[in-house]
């Protein structure tokens, strides 16, 4: 039986690209998102039972547990890996950001990812077999960006979570890594205007924004057996912007 992987936030953008890439590579995928997008419907149609999807609010820990339990029941095995991709952003100067928005970003991006990882690990650790946890972080977590303080906090938290967890579960052969993409032209970077994006491109040695296809092969590699000795790391893919 092929291995299966949990991917959160599959309705669009990077999460959808990761799910599609992994399915094409032979993994089965359990995806979740808040909305049943046309992209998700296309995955369901193309891959049938190899792709299972459940509406899940990453702000609802019980829903996250139910999604993992349902996916394990569907594939009748613990997952090989988890890709914590689901995320949201809130832009604005901190002093004017509503606290409710800040709490929501931290819950969805950070607590939700931790809850999803916890739920999956509870089944993975019982088998005493290797596995993979991959957190989709951001260079804003290490470098920051004006107007993205809460988002940056959630991503820095994700990196710290991964470093600590890698020590905790390393003995089981479970690796935990972060991927920190540079700025991408996806819905999440909608808060950046064209002028800001142009400025980012000018400061990037490789002279362009980050593409989905820059990230998906790295996810696939970190899931592979060849990446078994890489853990506790944050791998930056930003065209040299932060070099």
């Amino acid at each position, binding site marked *: 039986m092929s291995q299966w992987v949990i991917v959160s936030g599959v309705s669009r953008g990077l999460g959808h690209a990761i799910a599609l890439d992994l399915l094409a590579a032979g993994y089965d995928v359990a995806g979740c998102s808040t909305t049943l997008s046309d992209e998700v419907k296309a995955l369901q149609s193309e891959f049938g039972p190899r792709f299972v999807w459940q509406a899940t609010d990453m702000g609802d820990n019980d829903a996250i547990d139910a999604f993992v339990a349902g996916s394990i029941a569907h594939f009748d095995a613990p997952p090989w890996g988890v890709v914590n991709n689901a995320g949201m952003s809130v832009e604005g100067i901190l002093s004017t950001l509503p606290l409710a928005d800040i709490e929501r970003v931290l819950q969805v991006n950070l607590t939700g990812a931790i809850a999803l990882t916890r739920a999956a690990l*509870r089944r993975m*650790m*019982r088998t005493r077999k290797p596995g993979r946890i991959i957190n989709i972080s951001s260079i804003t977590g290490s470098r920051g960006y004006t107007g993205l303080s809460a988002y940056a906090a959630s991503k820095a938290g994700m990196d710290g979570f991964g470093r600590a967890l890698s020590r905790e579960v390393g003995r089981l052969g479970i690796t935990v890594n972060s991927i920190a993409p540079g700025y991408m032209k996806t819905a999440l970077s909608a808060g950046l205007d064209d002028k800001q994006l142009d400025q980012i491109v000018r400061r990037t040695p490789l002279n362009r924004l980050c593409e989905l296809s820059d990230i998906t092969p790295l996810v696939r590699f970190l899931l592979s057996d060849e990446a078994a000795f890489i853990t506790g790391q944050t791998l930056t893919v930003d065209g040299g912007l932060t070099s």
Partner: protein
Amino acid sequence: MSFDLVRTELTQILTDKSAPVVEITPDTVLLNGPLDIDSLDLATLVVTLEEATGLQPFREGFVLFHTAGELGALFTKAAG
């Protein structure tokens, strides 16, 4: 929940990690005692027991326990 389940799952964990299997009684100390297990093994034991019984004695917070019998008693208490 009977103490037998704690003993069974604990023995399984020792077997899985190729550790010496010793006799486990209710008084057997779990960590830093006669068993070759660490905190990760203990977490695995707790998760396994939670999954097997559907009970979650630590849902509202961690409760200190030292022996196999004390762990079993926490599950018995959670069962009401």
